[in-house]
């Protein structure tokens, strides 16, 4: 039994993550005031949807780049390949946080100009921005897998049978032989998306009053963490050093900040553990 659990650490951590979230939700339903609970629920759901959409967009962009790569390799005009490499390297050279902040500026411009005014569209736009700065991790993995198989007899043996390079790369290498590797990368992309989103939302929300702001961005965990109430709740942890019994109050009176911090940290930790466990299970 011991061996079986250690072999499936990823599943164990997935259930731990879901269980932890459910447990804190039930706890909050009992002890947290209703408006704060609704905000946390909305923040968590928005954060989750954005991160999930980052996975979808990133995978889509990466696969498109690989398709373009394959097509460009088969045509004689090498200028397109150079242009593609230049654009990707340019994007890669921008620090992720800076790039995403710039994207938020563009988003604000669109919202104030009434180009984007739908809540769902705003969420998708944020996911799109984040994925633009993380999708190259998937491109790198896909290229690594393709290069690995191109060196083996498998690629050449299929090629000389007249099977198209497009099919070998997309179906035989990426789909048949790299799904597990890609899924593992997508789990870590989820963690990266949560981290980047919370960081940028925290940065732009500090000192920003949603009541007087001209732009209402969706509530996310990062934005909620920047609220004065949350910060006070977190700082209240320091009271425990002087008065250990104060710990009870932390879990009853300072729930908003503690819950948000827990959700962020626990999600990051869980995605890291799930990804590691998955790698171990499939010996990646």
């Amino acid at each position, binding site marked *: 039994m011991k061996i079986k659990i250690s072999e499936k650490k990823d599943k164990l951590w997935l259930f731990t993550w879901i269980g932890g979230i459910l447990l804190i939700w039930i706890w909050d339903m009992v002890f947290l005031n209703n408006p704060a609970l609704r905000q946390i629920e909305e923040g968590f759901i928005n954060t989750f949807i954005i991160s999930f959409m980052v996975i979808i967009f990133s995978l889509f962009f990466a696969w498109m780049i690989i398709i373009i790569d394959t097509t460009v390799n*088969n045509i*004689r005009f090498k200028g397109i390949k150079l242009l593609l490499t230049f654009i990707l390297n340019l994007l890669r050279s921008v620090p992720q946080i800076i790039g995403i902040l710039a994207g938020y500026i563009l988003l604000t411009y669109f919202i104030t100009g009434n180009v984007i005014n739908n809540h769902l569209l705003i969420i998708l736009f944020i996911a799109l921005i984040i994925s633009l700065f993380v999708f190259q991790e998937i491109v790198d993995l896909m290229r690594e897998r393709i290069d690995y198989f191109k060196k*083996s*007899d*498998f690629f*050449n*043996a*299929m*090629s*000389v*049978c*007249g*099977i*198209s*390079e497009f*099919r*070998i790369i997309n*179906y*035989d290498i990426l789909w*048949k*032989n790299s799904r597990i590797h890609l899924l593992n990368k997508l789990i870590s992309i989820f963690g990266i998306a949560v981290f980047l989103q919370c960081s940028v939302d925290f940065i732009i929300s500090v000192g920003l009053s949603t009541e007087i702001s001209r732009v209402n961005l969706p509530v996310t965990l990062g934005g909620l963490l920047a609220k004065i109430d949350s910060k006070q709740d977190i700082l209240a942890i320091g009271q425990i050093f002087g008065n250990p019994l104060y710990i009870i109050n932390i879990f009853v009176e300072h729930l908003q900040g503690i819950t948000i911090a827990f959700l962020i940290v626990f999600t990051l930790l869980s995605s890291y553990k799930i990804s590691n466990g998955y790698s171990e299970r499939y010996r990646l």
Partner: protein
Amino acid sequence: MNTNNYSIHIRKEKRSLVRIDSFRFFSGEITFLFGESGIGKSLISRALYGLLDPQELTISINDTPFKQYLQNEKTKHIRKNSFFVFQEPSSHLNPLETLSTQLNEGDLSETGGEDELLSRLWDGADQLKIKDLLSIYPKPHRPSGGEKQRILLTMAFKKINLIQKKSTGYSDTFFVFDEPTGSLDNHYRNIFLDILFEKFEHNPFSALIITHDYSIISEIYKRHNNLLSQIRFNELSRNGDRVVQNDFSPDKYLNWLKNAPKLTPPDQNKVTPDNPVLVLKSGLQVFGYKLTFLDKNQNQTDIKIYPGEMVYLKAPSGTGKTTIAKIIMGLIPANNLNMEISGYKINEKTSTHFYKRKIWGKASGLVFQHADEALNRKSTVMETFKGLPLKRKDRISNLKNQFNHLFIKESQDKSFLKKQTTFLSGGQKQRLNILRTVILNTKLLILDEPLNGLDFESIKVVLQMFMERQQAGTGILLISHNEEIFGKIVPEDKIYYLQSEIL
């Protein structure tokens, strides 16, 4: 003579890898064990020798757990008084010690005869050259596969010397040679057999020799027939989920070889013999070597293959036969390349795009040497044929016919088509590898070691398929170390010899 009978079951998690109810080897005799690759020959012998990892596999021998089998006094005696020559010599040798040190490790230091053995296995090569070789630490590329194999054989023979010196009874010995001649050409293979039988004649021991090389039978009948009463030929085959061990009648092979099918001229209605499907000029240069082709009179010549011809390219291991196949298919660049495939002129400047458009799967096809590496292991049998340029309906019905022909037993089982290739036996993989290319019906077909890993029945079926293609007008270039079989089938004037010289 005692018969040692074992029931063996080896599993990995829930999957059964090998299950045999009665595996026999005979004390004081030499048993040659044939059978297609992947059927479990190596696994069974490793289990009996106690070389498998009980943490990774669940093994029972005679219904006894493996750990208990390892503690058995007889097992301990066998391991002490025997030697196991691994199929892949690199996995046997320690990269952190010189070959010389390894030749004298453990109780191997208690016996001599090393110089004589080395000299014989290197066919009287200069002693200084051998000494130089012994001073090196084994690396993947040096010594060569053949040299590593001969070092292991030297160790095994030293161990035989030792037990003969100690007069250990043969019932406590179990020498296993797993594909001992896989990297040796026929000349060195025969030297190995000479030494083995000499030692056996001097004082018998028990040995199991796992091999795919059926031509060993001819050599034994020609030169060691005085020992036939102490030699057995067995074959492993599959029966449902079990593996069974049967006697292999040498006459079956020898008679077949005697009456081996000869190539007949192709159907004149289908073939226009004026235009060669391949012209490859001598003198191409690759990896710092110049490669030339010689005819039966050892005169330099060019390779020319006309429709309906089968041409056999011979050379010792490591000369560059596979490299030639890959150069023809545009997978390895070569200098001074002057070639013509189905009328398309090709030189070193010809681009990969040209091969994609005109050659690959259209004018020419190549069956790769190692089926295990050439197939997508994650694909099912059915998926192996997807993506091939087989649009016409007649080609697809041809695929079904050829499949049923090559996979007679398997085609009865509908689930076989959905089986992942990784779970196929080596022989099944090789047949699938061959079929994938043959079905393309290209004008030129290059076969690189097409009999690798096949059992005797499969060899016959596969050869018949090649001859049908040749009859239908396909030009075939054969590359194989199996000189006995192809030497019989291919006419002498269609045999070329490959020679390489350092530039």
